[in-house]
């Protein structure tokens, strides 16, 4: 390996975590390459508009400031950061090398050091009618608002849990969408209990309160302790049924109400995106909030591998925490490369660690509020499809479990769940929860990511 290759830090993912890591590395004289599948840095949260626009009337100033801050952080160090956009990592190839694909074909990216900042994707909860066109995940709705500058529907409702619900409701309304209702699964009393935790980030709490008053002012119903039951429509979505949820988030179907809509956003949580970390062989453990996450030390370096993992891909804490984690990993790497002394490492990291600790206290409050309950699993009826790619129905899982299947790999072999184009990213968190609910908790395993992580057209393999 040449010395140049040996020094090269490769960062997978150019969201808040990856960009913060690259900027921090540059500050200490280390060059890096950021690889991102999108056309622009920023990640789903801060990417911003993909086309030219004179204004962003539907987005709040806090978001616009954060989007600018990320671009500024990158611009200040752009001489030291090479950016490969619209580029996907297909997996490791040999040692210290990744296989990439972009519009021009396949290429190889050698690395001396690796930082994974691959973010998260949404946790899917199957319910009758969830495959109807018009049913979208909350993040997909937001991407259309923030990056596409397009209204995903004309008359919409939001269902799910957590702080994203009021935020997206406000953005939709400001974008001209008729928002007919927002249904938060958790009861208000549970949020009130977290008042102390929420005070760790008073500005964020205030901004949440101002969103709630915006919704009230515009007469947009926000119902705590309510959620989705089903979606209806012939060729595409025309209405949903929503109902009060009990403390276990079981829908009280006898109290269900119909709401006419042409699109909805569904957001019952997120899952860390760990497919590349798993292919690289990093050790993982299961967390209820984030799914499987890598086992890391306090600097976010893997316990059994040299790679660092930062941001939501090592546990869901959001963008502010992702920035802190990117900085911590970069500082540690700068120290390992002899660019800063131990006392410099300690001086600079203490502040970042303190900030991260405050964010965690705030975030854990919301995690307790949004802690998903088992009632969600019973939204899917026996005939409801739970794996979209392979059209596997819930009753097929029941049958396999009744016949003695005790782990997710056997479940996959029996039913084909997780074997389609998405490699199980859409169905595996439901399957895991379903096995847990069936009383299977020991060694149930994980739907293993497959190389290549993204489909390669035959034409590229010549």
């Amino acid at each position, binding site marked *: 390996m040449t010395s140049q290759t040996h020094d090269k830090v490769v960062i997978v993912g150019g969201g808040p975590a990856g960009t913060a890591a690259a900027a921090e590395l540059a500050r200490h004289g280390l060059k890096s390459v950021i690889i991102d599948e999108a056309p622009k840095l920023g990640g789903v949260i801060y990417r911003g508009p993909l086309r030219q626009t004179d204004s962003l009337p539907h987005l709040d100033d806090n978001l616009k400031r954060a989007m600018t801050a990320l671009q500024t952080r990158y611009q200040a160090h752009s001489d030291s950061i090479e950016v490969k956009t619209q580029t996907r990592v297909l997996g490791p190839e040999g040692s210290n090398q990744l296989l990439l694909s972009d519009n021009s074909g396949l290429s190889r990216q050698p690395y001396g050091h690796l930082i994974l900042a691959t973010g998260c994707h949404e946790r899917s909860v199957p319910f009758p009618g969830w495959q109807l*066109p018009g049913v979208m995940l909350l993040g997909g709705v937001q991407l259309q608002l923030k990056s596409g500058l397009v209204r995903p529907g004309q008359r919409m409702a939001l269902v799910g849990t957590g702080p994203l619900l009021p935020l997206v409701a406000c953005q939709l309304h400001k974008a001209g969408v008729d928002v007919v209702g927002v249904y938060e699964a958790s009861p208000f009393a549970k949020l009130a209990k977290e008042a102390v935790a929420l005070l760790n980030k008073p500005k964020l709490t205030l901004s949440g309160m101002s969103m709630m008053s915006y919704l009230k002012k515009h007469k947009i119903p926000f119902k705590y302790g309510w959620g989705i039951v089903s979606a209806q429509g012939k060729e595409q979505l025309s209405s949903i049924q929503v109902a009060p949820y009990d403390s276990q988030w079981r829908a009280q179907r006898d109290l269900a109400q119909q709401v006419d809509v042409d699109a909805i956003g569904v957001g019952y949580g997120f899952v860390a995106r760990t497919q590349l970390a798993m292919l690289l062989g990093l050790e993982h453990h299961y967390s209820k909030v984030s799914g499987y996450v890598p086992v890391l030390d306090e600097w976010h370096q893997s316990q059994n591998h040299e790679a660092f993992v930062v941001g939501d891909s090592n546990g869901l804490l959001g963008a502010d925490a992702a920035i802190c984690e990117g900085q911590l990993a970069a500082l540690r790497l700068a120290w390992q490369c002899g660019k800063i002394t131990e006392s410099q490492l300690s001086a600079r990291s203490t502040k970042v660690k303190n900030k991260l600790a405050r964010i965690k206290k705030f975030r854990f409050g919301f995690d307790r509020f949004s802690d998903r309950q088992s009632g969600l699993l019973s939204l899917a009826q026996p005939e409801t499809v739970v794996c979209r790619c392979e059209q596997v129905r819930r009753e097929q899982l029941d049958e396999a479990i009744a016949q003695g299947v005790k782990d997710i790999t056997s479940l996959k072999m029996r039913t084909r769940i997780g074997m389609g184009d998405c490699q199980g990213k859409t169905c595996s968190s439901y399957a895991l929860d379903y096995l847990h609910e069936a009383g299977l908790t020991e060694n149930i395993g994980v739907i293993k990511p497959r190389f290549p992580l993204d489909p390669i057209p035959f034409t590229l393999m010549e």
Partner: protein
Amino acid sequence: MKSLKRTRDITPLPSRNFKITVDDQPVEACEGETVLSVLLAANYARVMENDRNVASGAYCGMGVCHCCQVKINAKHKQRACQTLVEPQMSVETLANRFKEEGIKHD
């Protein structure tokens, strides 16, 4: 063929734009946009028919779920949410190779 109207743009398109076709109908698009944004702007909810003959619309919108795959410039299974528009691009919704070639699953 009649042009498709874009009715869901939050802010006006820039004046410099071009045309793509969706199911042989011309529609305005501009640099930087994804195919999915153009489809949604033109009121297209149903975009894909999967290998098991089930129609779907964009679901995750970020390249994860593979539920918005369309045929682009004669190539099947292109994710609308991950593909940027180009002048003269031809997009076909609900196109499926199994269906076109009469191949049955199972």
